């Protein structure tokens, strides 16, 4: 069973979690000043990364909190998890660029 480190609860089985899309997608501060292309970019367009992807997860069957994770989409390995609002951790291993 894949274990995911919840920043609040610790190591928990994957089945307690729900994927919640790409992380660090910021809503434009002034929507009325954005162009339709910028709004489309924010609303619909997401990265389709092969490799390390920053994404939101929710510990829905536990503490119910959202947090962020760095996951390798080719191996499904979770490289780091961190609380919402914290900046993306810098991975130590060479060749890994979030």
């Amino acid at each position, binding site marked *: 069973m894949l274990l995911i480190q919840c920043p609040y*609860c610790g190591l*928990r089985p994957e089945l*307690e979690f729900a994927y919640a899309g790409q992380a660090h997608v910021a809503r434009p501060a002034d929507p009325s000043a954005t162009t339709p292309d910028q709004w489309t970019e924010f609303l619909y367009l997401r990265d389709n990364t092969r490799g390390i992807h920053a994404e939101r997860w929710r510990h829905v*069957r536990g503490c119910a*909190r959202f947090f962020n994770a760095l996951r390798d989409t080719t191996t499904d390995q979770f490289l780091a998890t961190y609380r919402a609002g914290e900046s993306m951790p810098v991975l130590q291993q060479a060749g890994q660029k979030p």
Partner: protein
Amino acid sequence: MADALHFTYSPGRLGRREGAPGLVLQELTQFALASVIARKGQAAQAVGAAQRAFGASPPTTPTIAAGSDIAFVWSGPGHWLALGPQSTESFEARLGTVFGTHASVFDQSGSRVLLELRGPRVRDVLAKGVSIDLHPRAFRTGDVAVTTASHLAVHLWQVADEPVYRLLVVRTWFDSLWRWLAASAAEYGCEVMAPTPYTL
């Protein structure tokens, strides 16, 4: 006991009849329960207020903290379940006075069933439906987990090293949880005790 909303069971022996029971199961009744959720940025103040009033500091890690007659079960960051004995005084009002504007308090009394589980095979029984590691190196007395048991959301905590666990489950799911527990404990033998009033 013949309440349409309350699943009923009888004290006695379930499953294997020979030898000592592997699981001893007892419902704890007559407790008051409330959720306490700190307002934005007020978690530290809420913890301080409870510490001064109850002598129990609501935990900031998944653990349980007990004062003289009240216990705080961690439920999430800035979120706790307060457990206390049932009394004529409103539990919600008593907590609300202490937390003031630092936290929102809602009475949950009657919404959950509290079970105490003990016996030599209690970990083996729980392992059939609880997917977290309950080995003493990972989960100790005082530790709390908000997790699932047989796919039902529960609060689980350890109250003694023997080990003894307490399991808090939503009342309307008690029926399902009970069936899973009875089936899981059958091979070890399960002694169902008569319900007893809650104590810390």
